[in-house]
């Protein structure tokens, strides 16, 4: 049965600010799920804390709205126990790159087959506008009393260094592009991170929709704004690792691209490598029946309600008679 994006809509009132980039992300996600035709009961959205964290309640698919910074541990636990589920972790930049940074880095080491979407708007919205880890040094967005004294982190470079095998960036207001990137991320075999640039109309008065659109820089020739964002697709940039021998250079190239900011900001897929064993493959190396009979699906008791596990084998090892 073909699915429509409306099949992924709940009746829960959406309480984001008017003009919030989250609306675009929500729409792109619903469209991506519909186009990939993943049945809602097979999807688990694990969302963090902050404005973005509420997204799981607006999507008609299983939603696990967790603790601040902990989307990835929950998501990994779910995926490992039941690898048949399509697990998508979603959180803000403060959630993932601030309080949850340790998990972000360590998830990379596992290359587990889930998708991680980061709403990246440079501020903590729900607590009223403090600087997030992606706000550049020296910027003073409107609600902070003094300019930001911390250097910003670059989520793409961190993801590349940590071992993510799909690293991309998109933009909340380019729903079509974002939808395609999300689809690719979901389809990717391995751990995918999508950094989603997103204006916060309420608290980030610097990286606004107009700023991304370049409305402050009118091209004298055309009289039109020169947008800051450009798409990697069509520039000849090839993010795909075709052979492990080119991995290192591809990563370096992706990092180089990820450093571009200011007048030219690339969006698209920076890096993609499906040659690294996923966590499921690593577990299957040890537990051969893992995919057929993962933890969530194992029968643990018999018809009498007695345990299936035969612990006598353990006792035999420990026997002293």
């Amino acid at each position, binding site marked *: 049965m073909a699915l429509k994006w409306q099949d992924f809509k709940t009746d829960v009132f959406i309480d984001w600010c008017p003009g919030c980039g989250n609306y675009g992300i929500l729409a792109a996600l619903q469209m991506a799920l519909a186009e990939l035709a993943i*049945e809602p*009961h097979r999807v*688990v959205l*694990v969302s963090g804390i902050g404005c973005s964290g*509420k997204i*799981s*309640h607006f999507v*008609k*698919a*299983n*939603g*696990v*709205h*967790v*603790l601040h910074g*902990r989307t*990835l*541990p*929950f998501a*990994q*636990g*779910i995926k*490992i*126990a*039941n690898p*048949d589920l399509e697990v998508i972790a979603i959180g803000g930049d403060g959630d993932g790159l601030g309080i949850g940074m*340790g*998990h972000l880095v*360590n998830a990379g080491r596992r290359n587990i087959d889930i998708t991680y979407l980061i709403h990246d708007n440079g501020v903590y919205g729900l607590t009223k506008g403090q600087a997030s880890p992606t706000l550049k040094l020296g910027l003073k967005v409107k609600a902070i009393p003094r300019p930001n004294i911390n250097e910003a982190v670059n989520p793409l470079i961190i993801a590349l260094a940590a071992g993510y095998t799909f690293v991309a960036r998109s933009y909340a207001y380019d729903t079509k592009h974002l939808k395609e990137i999300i689809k690719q991320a979901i389809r990717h075999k391995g751990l995918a991170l999508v950094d989603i640039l997103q204006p916060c109309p309420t608290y980030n008065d610097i990286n606004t929709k107009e700023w991304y659109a370049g409305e402050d820089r009118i091209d004298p020739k055309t009289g039109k704004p020169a947008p800051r964002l450009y798409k990697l697709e069509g520039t000849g940039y090839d993010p795909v690792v075709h052979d492990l021998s080119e991995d290192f250079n591809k990563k370096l190239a992706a990092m180089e691209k990820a450093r571009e900011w200011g007048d030219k900001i690339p969006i698209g897929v920076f890096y993609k490598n499906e040659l690294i064993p996923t966590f499921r493959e690593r*577990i299957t190396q*040890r*537990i051969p*029946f*893992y995919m*057929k*009979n993962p*933890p*969530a*699906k*194992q*029968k*643990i*008791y*018999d018809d*009498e*309600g*007695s*345990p*299936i*596990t*035969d*612990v*006598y*084998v*353990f*006792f035999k090892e*420990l*026997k*002293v*008679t």
Partner: protein
Amino acid sequence: MMDKGFNWMAGGPQGSGVDTAANIFGRACGYGGLYVYGRREYHSNIKGLHSYFHLRILSSEVSANVNDVDMLAAFDAETVVRHISEIVPKGGIIVDQNQLDIKILEIPTLPPEFKLIFQDFLKENGIGDRLADLLEYARNKGIYVFEVPYIELLKQIASKLGIEKLSKITQIINVLTIGISFGLLRYNIGLVKKAVKDIFGEKPKIVEMNLFTLEIAYEYAKDNFSKDFNDRIPIGTVNEERIFLSGNQAVAIGKVLGGCRVQTYYPITPAADESEYIEAHEILPTKIPGVEAGVVVLQTEDEIAAINMASGAALTGARASTSTSGPGFSLMVEGLSWAGNNEVPVVITYYQRGAPSTGLPTRHGQDDLRFAIHAGHGEFPRIVLASGDIRECFYDAVNAFNYAERFQLPVIHLIDKALANSSQTFPVFDVSKVKIHRGEILDEKMLGGIEYKRFAFTESGISPRVLLGTKNGVHWYTGDEHNEYGHISEEPHNRTRMIEKRMKKLEAVEREVPISEKINFLGEQNAKNMIVSWGSPKGAIVEALNELSREGYSLGFLQVRMVHPLPREHVKEILERAERIIDVELNYSGQLGGIITEKTGVSMDFQIVKYNGRPMTTTEVYNALKLVLEGKAPKRQVLTYGA
């Protein structure tokens, strides 16, 4: 008279094979039909600091040490110094002849605060400054000293085996002292050889070297020491299958029996051994041919990830748990609160050790009862189980999962280091009565056509569960307060009902879990004197109680196993019958006693506590109880035994 059995202690620097020695010794005794209880003590250190194993050997089951050491196998001089005062008259010390001239106070690994005390001890007893002087003092107290030329024997072994460098076999001093010990005991060497083979089974060269060493040492003892200990070791009988295992192992086996299929952990003492043991057995044998089972063990980046990964796994229907100690549990607290709010059946095995902070990472304590019961912001239901011995660790590990799923709440299984790292002989655990109870789970068919509400209001407070991934059963969770669907709700009337719904589940726990799984009672029903305790002191208390009952005292023992929710009516009723209530705990404040008073209004008349980082022994519990019974005890006695 209490049967103290034979008490053997092996000690040496960490990394010198003390554990292996104890394991060989314990197994060899097991093969001879004897029961063993062994306590492992070690520093938070990899190599060099003092560690020891204190084994008690009896012809019947035993779960505690006594203060005595009948034979000390000292790998080094420090072991003699540290344990000299524990050796009983007519006991023996096996010591390296080459170390006799060592100046005691110059042993570099002895800490200054120890030296200060020991210096006074030497002075008071007029003992000189060399190890030989201390041994002379021991001889005067009737202790037999067996001086053995360790190095010469090692040289002999090396040359026979064609090993050139002596440094390659100094590691074998542990087996050398075992050979001497069993030689002195005139114990059946065949049984010791069997133990060596079992332990080093897969490494034939090592087996050969150890067997050879064993024989040389055994013969050396027989040939050189006319004094023997032949009559010291009890005679055992074997008429059943027995196992020798630690609390860590008992929990691990209990978990996989109980259906644990995802275990997460971050390395911490004394919990990590459990996870590693499970991981080593990740593919599980099953009773039904063709049915496959396996556990995924995940070492996470921290305990925050450990608890939350386990909760995530639990939402899919896998039985999931994590194991930790105090510092790790501290990090898990926010995740515990989420699990409580979202009614997640997750199990946390909590191995207490000396606290606060890093505290005594490798030592004993029951400091965290109140923490386990109260941890987490907000009010939410949980169960806290506290096992009293290694056998209970096993069955409670199964119970924990059953309770977690039946009542849909986090279960904390409290254990302490005295159970985790001690090893004991048991008849093979009976699993014939073990059952799995998963609570109400709705599947695809049951869900057809209905609108599923994960947190539906029900009479019992328990809402039927749907596992993530079930067709027709899309649902939501959130750490925010939520409505029946699991969507965020801040409405006051919903909030009231939701809190009540969750808390009500504790009433179901009180109603439905049989009292036999919540408390144990021993001794006289209407005893005048009632002991109350929980966790590892059980072993010492039971033995002391039996002895004092034989002496004619009226004594009962209430062991609380489900410490939360406290079965308060039963506890109250039992305690109110008594004239004197004696609270025995391995902490400073008597935490369980305080909780009982809070919940029942019954106050503790006497306190016997210990907080020196060492577990309670039968000897000291017996002595302290006797003072109470004789009316000579102060309200509070603080026990201090242990090296």
